[in-house]
């Protein structure tokens, strides 16, 4: 090796990209949003007026906020457990197949999670339309779907988007469940089989309990994601019809960027969402700590 003495690499230089990015693009905006949430800010006149907690109290007393919170909660509670249950069922099935078939299935199930949400939302807008495939299939078996299409009916719009979300994410979580199952020692099943345990008993007594950390992690991760649902809503329904699909983040976007004087209140909403998500993250950290100890 040549005894070439290159310039030293000071630690500060190595860290600099992160220090700048964190300070300018994350921490400053976070503080700015907090300050903004206590002001009335007009985008057009670019004036700031200190209003104390008025943005928060206005928000908490507005029907829109509670509608958005309830839609978001329905979305999360309605999708996360279903996705998780399906992910477990598919993982169990895939695991029993030969390695080649298993890998093929795994790839096919994973595909939706790498596809652009905008693309998927557009495809499903077509499938859910009045003359779409889903209504056509229903009429073939003698049933009638919503007359104006699934996304234009207040009672079916949100469930339709939820079903799509389950379709998108099940494969991703199945891969995580499969990875969790890999970590369960094989000889546990061997012993159980020798003791005469049925497949169901093996699942209930071995797989499920040992999968618990993975499952809790998946539930939290998916809840955090679902609670921020936005792109699908923006592309498919713009929060409608009549607010039936207005979620928290959609309402945040609407107030911040489609109104001229509500950025302050929108920032308050952003912080309320942040606090709710921090609770989810807190649960996650708690569980992970238990997992490692």
């Amino acid at each position, binding site marked *: 090796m040549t005894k070439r*003495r290159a310039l030293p690499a000071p630690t500060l230089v190595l860290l600099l990209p992160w220090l700048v990015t964190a300070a300018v693009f994350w*921490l400053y905006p976070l503080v700015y949003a907090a300050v903004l949430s206590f002001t009335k800010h007009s985008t057009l006149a670019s004036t700031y007026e200190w209003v104390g907690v008025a943005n928060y109290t206005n928000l908490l007393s507005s029907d829109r906020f509670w509608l958005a919170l309830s839609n978001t909660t329905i979305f999360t509670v309605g999708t996360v457990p279903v996705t998780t249950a399906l992910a477990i069922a598919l993982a169990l099935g895939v695991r029993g197949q030969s390695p080649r078939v298993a890998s093929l299935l795994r790839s096919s199930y994973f595909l939706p999670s790498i596809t652009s949400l*905008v693309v998927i939302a557009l495809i499903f807008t*077509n499938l859910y339309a009045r003359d779409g495939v889903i209504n056509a299939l229903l009429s073939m078996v003698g049933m009638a779907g919503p007359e104006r299409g699934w996304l234009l009916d207040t009672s079916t719009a949100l469930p339709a988007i939820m079903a799509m979300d389950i379709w998108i994410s099940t494969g991703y979580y199945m891969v995580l469940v499969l990875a969790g199952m890999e970590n369960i020692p094989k000889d546990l099943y061997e012993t159980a089989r020798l003791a005469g345990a049925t497949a169901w008993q093996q699942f209930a007594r071995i797989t499920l309990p040992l999968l618990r950390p993975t499952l809790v992690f998946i539930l939290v991760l998916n809840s955090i994601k679902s609670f921020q649902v936005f792109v699908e809503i923006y592309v498919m329904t713009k929060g409608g019809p009549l607010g039936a699909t207005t979620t928290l983040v959609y309402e945040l*976007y609407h107030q911040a960027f489609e109104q001229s004087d509500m950025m302050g209140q929108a920032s308050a909403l952003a912080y309320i969402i942040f606090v709710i998500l921090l609770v989810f993250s807190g649960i996650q950290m708690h569980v992970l700590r238990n997992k490692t100890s």
Partner: protein
Amino acid sequence: MDSIVRTTKLHRIIVGVLLAIVAIGMAYPMVWMLLLSLRAVPEQYGSLADLMFAPTTTSNYTDALGSDDFGRYMLNSVIVGTIVTAGNVLFCFLVGYAFARRAFAFKALLFATVLGVLIIPPHVVMIPMYKLMATLGWINTYWALIVPWLVTPFGVFLVRQYVASLPAELEDAARIDGAGEWYILFGIVMPLARPVLTVLAIYVFLSNWNSFLFPFLFTNDEAHRTLPVGLAFYVGKQSIDWGHLMAGASISALPILALFMMFQRRIIEGLTAGALKE
């Protein structure tokens, strides 16, 4: 005993058929997208049959790429995606290495900022980020689509964990031989960290390619829109011409589909790494 073997075999086949049906259900919407993109869809179609039996055409693609700016969106997506990916590989490596190997003041605190930023939901900072970009004059420029995303906390975390798990002896030996720190960094550690940097590159490129929120907020002219943003606006522009729309959607989805076909295992590894590395 023999009958048990037979029933489990039968059982396995039944489950296999069910799983195959699910697989078809997973693939079906993509297939539908491709089918529609190749149909000359009548402007006012009354039923599904009108759509199914419309003549086959490739004009949707030529229209989308030619007159509808999808060529431009694609170029933007490629430019932004490539630079952001390269930036993450370089900068996350430098920062991750520093956290793994160097000793410095406030190290624990600074590493806490990495983990802290990781849990900041992007929606919380979208208003101030928009105002910041406006102040900098970066709206409708590549700067807004590139600079804030050149180093991501997830990447720093991933590289730090990986480098910390590498033995330090090689670096020490090189140092004794008189190698400079930059040489150790790029000549010794970087090649060793290739697996994690590959996973990171795949993860960053895919999420950047599909990223919607910030490119959507930071651009409002055709010239700087990326594929997902251009596609989302396209819906409003047309009186829903499904053939055109699905050609645009296919143009957005096919490069990723091709990448996925080639690097399935690496991609699945990369996209689940965030969850599994914890």
